[in-house]
């Protein structure tokens, strides 16, 4: 059988599932199981990269799975935005798998097989979301993703984990069924289709009021985008082991949310119908509020993962903000932010996990001086933080720049101020961790008295006690990725160009 790009689309979903079966079969032999995980991740990556070639060449492979109701089918079609999301997910899955091995073994976590299987299913769902051709398909995989990550969130199995998991699932399912699904049905009732179409499908079918209500149904229905006040699930999900948090906050779940937001705005509404709508402007304000408020909350959190969770909420709001600006440049910025934040935040979570693995510390106030013990980890954290803040030469700065360009295009200059304040808040909650890590004595110890001008770095080879290599290499890799992405932004831009300038 010839493997055509169309088949490869189906393979993208299938490969992780096959891998999951493989992992289930190898549950008794951890080494074999992990090999299966890595091979699967590698295969998926290769598959996605070949698809990328096709898309770059202007192709749009598609695959129709099921057509069960008139006008409703489960079908996949690749467009640039989805390609980017798929690339991010499949690339980071490899890294995350490597890291998971280090973390899960380093912490002797139970039920590792279930962990890897659910992980693979979640990735498969993410692929489904990325390549979905219509809203229904997107919705189905969106729900699969929620469900398949629940066992990951509650991995620890204690009461706190179950409670967190319940909030996680409750909000995600509640919003998706309560808002997202009605919005889909309504869209379908209005237009008779839910296909993602360049330029949107609602134009001419919905008046400004209906458009506004629909917009809000979508934005709050896609709970994974964590727009306030339905963001609570994200901090709740922090009870999960760190690789899960990394997956949730960088690769699959939240990115699926904001990706859906962009997709809905671009392909369902279309930029024309939204620009100038009062609801769109309100969304801008809500996103701006979320952006700042979440950063402010992050400042008050002492638990590292909680702080990162709120940081994620804030960073996701960038994308919703970009979407609400409804200009091509803002869309480009939003798409870039998906990629950049993925790399930046996964680095930070990897680091949080590496610190936990090496020292069992979770509170930031306990992490003083750890940079001396784990310099590589903290350098990765520094780079990740700077990318989140948006400092060049790190990828995050492009996203911000393009959102700013979008804001200028949309004539919403207050957004510039919002971004400025947010950058400062980002500094305030991220940088002290690095600085205190490097320049302060560890907790309970004090540095030898040195007179002014005789500063010493205190990083000596004897002092270094890093987490296992498999926990340290992935964050370094993703941190390096943040740098590389700054210089290789052009391919992403070129990929996006067709949807920006139709």
């Amino acid at each position, binding site marked *: 059988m010839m493997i055509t790009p169309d088949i490869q689309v189906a393979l993208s979903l299938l490969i992780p599932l096959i891998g999951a079966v493989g992992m289930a079969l190898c549950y008794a032999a951890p080494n074999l199981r992990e090999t299966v995980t890595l091979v699967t991740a590698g295969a998926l990556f290769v598959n996605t990269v070949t698809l990328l070639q096709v898309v770059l060449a202007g192709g749009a492979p598609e695959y129709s799975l099921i057509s069960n109701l008139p006008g409703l089918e489960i079908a996949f079609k690749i467009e640039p935005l989805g390609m980017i999301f798929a690339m991010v997910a499949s690339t980071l899955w490899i890294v995350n798998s490597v890291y998971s091995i280090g973390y899960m073994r380093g912490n002797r976590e139970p039920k590792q097989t279930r962990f890897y299987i659910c992980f693979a299913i979640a990735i498969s769902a993410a692929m489904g979301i990325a390549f979905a051709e219509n809203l229904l398909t997107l919705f189905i995989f969106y729900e699969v993703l929620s469900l398949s990550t629940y066992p990951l969130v509650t991995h620890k199995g204690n009461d706190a984990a179950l409670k967190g998991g319940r909030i996680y699932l409750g909000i995600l399912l509640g919003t998706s069924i309560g808002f997202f699904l009605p919005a889909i049905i309504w869209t379908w009732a209005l237009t008779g289709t839910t296909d993602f179409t360049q330029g949107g499908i609602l134009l001419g079918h919905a008046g400004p009021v209906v458009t506004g209500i629909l917009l809000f149904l979508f934005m709050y229905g896609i709970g994974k985008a964590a727009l306030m006040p339905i963001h609570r699930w994200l901090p709740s999900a922090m009870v999960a082991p760190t690789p899960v948090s990394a997956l949730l906050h960088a690769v699959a779940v939240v990115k699926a949310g904001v990706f859906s937001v962009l997709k809905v705005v671009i392909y369902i509404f279309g930029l024309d119908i939204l620009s100038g709508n009062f609801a769109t402007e309100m969304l801008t304000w809500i996103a701006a509020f979320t952006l700042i408020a979440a950063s402010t909350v992050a400042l008050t959190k002492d638990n590292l993962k909680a702080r990162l969770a709120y940081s994620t909420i804030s960073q996701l709001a960038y994308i919703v903000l970009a979407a609400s600006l409804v200009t091509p440049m803002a869309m480009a910025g939003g798409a870039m932010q998906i990629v950049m934040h993925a790399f930046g935040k996964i680095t930070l979570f990897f680091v949080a996990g590496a610190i936990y693995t090496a020292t069992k510390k979770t509170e930031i106030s306990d992490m003083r001086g750890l940079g001396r013990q784990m310099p590589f980890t903290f350098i990765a954290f520094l780079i990740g933080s700077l990318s989140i803040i948006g*400092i060049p030469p790190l990828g995050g*700065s492009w996203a911000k720049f393009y959102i700013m360009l979008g804001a200028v295009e949309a004539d919403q200059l207050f957004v510039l101020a919002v971004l400025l304040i947010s950058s400062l808040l980002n500094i305030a909650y991220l940088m002290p961790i690095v600085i205190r890590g490097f320049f302060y004595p560890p907790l309970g110890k004090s540095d030898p008295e040195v007179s002014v001008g005789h500063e010493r*770095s205190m990083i000596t080879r004897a002092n270094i006690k890093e987490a296992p290599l498999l926990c340290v290499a992935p964050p370094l890799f993703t941190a390096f990725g943040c740098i590389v992405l700054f210089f290789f932004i052009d391919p992403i831009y070129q990929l996006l160009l067709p949807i920006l300038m139709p």
Partner: protein
Amino acid sequence: MIEGLNPGLILILGALLVPFTSGFIRNIYVLALPIIGLYYTWSLGLGSFGHVEILGHTLILTKIDALARVFGTIFHIAAFAGLLYGLHVKDPQQHVATLIYAGAAIAAVFSGDLVSLFSYWELTAISSAFLIFASRNERAFNAGMRYLIIQVTSGVLLLAGIALYVAQSGNMDVAPMELGSAASWLFLIAFGIKTAFPLLHNWVQDAYPQATVSGTVILSAFTTKLAVYALARFFAGEDILLWIGAIMVIFPVFHATLENDLRRTVAYSMNSQQGFMVIGVGIGTELALNGVAAHATVSILYTCLLFMATGAVLYRAGTAKITDLGAVYKSMPLTAMFAVIGSLVIMAFPLTAAFASKSLILSAALDGKMVILWLAMLFGAVAVIDNVGLKIPLFGFFKPGEDMGLQEAPKHMLLAMGVLSVLAIGIGIFPSAFFQILPYPIEYHVYTASHVVTQLQLIIFAALVFVCCVKFNMYPKPQDTLTLDFDWFYRKPLKKFAINLGLLINAGYLGFLRMSQAVIGWFITKARETHGGQGLLSRTAASGVAVSIVMLLFGVTLLLVY
């Protein structure tokens, strides 16, 4: 070399190898980098290199013109001297930060497009902050965070300006702009923060004294001068700068007079000196811009020299407060000598570099018939004689009193100071050689009799009054105090406001959370009461009850149907 490689990258990339070296090799290595960079800069010549197509725009990685080359050259020299001065430091983090910082400043100067400029602009902010944090104490940490936040504010404002500018003009070239559009104002504020415009200036005096001994030297050389360069690049001849500059010259001198901390005193007067350059940019004539370039160069020389000398005292004595110091010159005569040289230069004493450079700007002002500005600058010149030229040596080094029993500064520090002194005096003696590298061709005679006489009048009369004031106890007595400045507003009331606002929002949010929890809880309780266990709707009704319900509803149905 790679085609189009920005000279600054030599230092930046070179910095990454520093942690893998140690001892003597590290010393040689870090000193070699600026030398290589300088050589490379000059070997490139003038022109633009490294055009890259990206995101539909053309980026020019390296663009060297005469103005940029002056700044690039002095930055390399300052980096070399600063590194030499800091050789004793056993903290590779500081070396790395220094090299990246210097490299970024150099690279920013040679950037041909706005994106590169912004990138390096931010890089200087981040890397330099580490020189403050490296002091490793709580005050330094806080000052560093404030510094970082202010610097990044500048960066983000610049980015916002670029976004606006690109949206309007569609290109990303570094080119002069007219003040008027929102973009240009954002540029101006971004540059203004780093130039330390009045009311945007506090980060200088806040952060520099908290940095490490060598860190302060490095810090003083780059950020503010890079900003002056940017101003000259974009806003040459912009009138508003004249007045900003004038205020800037006068504004900090009073604080400089009152300050107890030697390094903070230098920081204030450096701020005042920045005003000269801002005025020069505002005048915008060829002579003025030459003056800006020249004075920036000279300013780096003497500021570094003064920070080095005061730093050496701090290094040996552990303090740089006038009230804590005694007769330093007795045990550190060479350092004291360099401090005097630095003071002479800042006073623009004949035969020192500033004598040549300051007069360029003054002359440009007079050429433009800007008498008030000229008087303001003259006032600044007088003030600097007071608060650095005389105060630093007399109060810091030549106080009467017992020998403090200090050791002379280490050799590499003396060497670094020596290098700068030689340059400062060399330029003073042979100004025309120095004028060769200035951006515009120049025909200017520094040493006219009247110039020398008037300058000497200025200095000696000022000195006389100073001595009189000290003698008759009219001079504000140095006290172990702090003088409040504009930063009070954001360090006290604004901070309080922000904290209270945060608490308020937090309380509001908690209230919202509690309320929604209560509402949901109420629903759940009600539902449980009516629907749960033995609730009305889930109770197992007796058959009789069931039949009654049936009858009742049947009655209702009949009524409705009928």
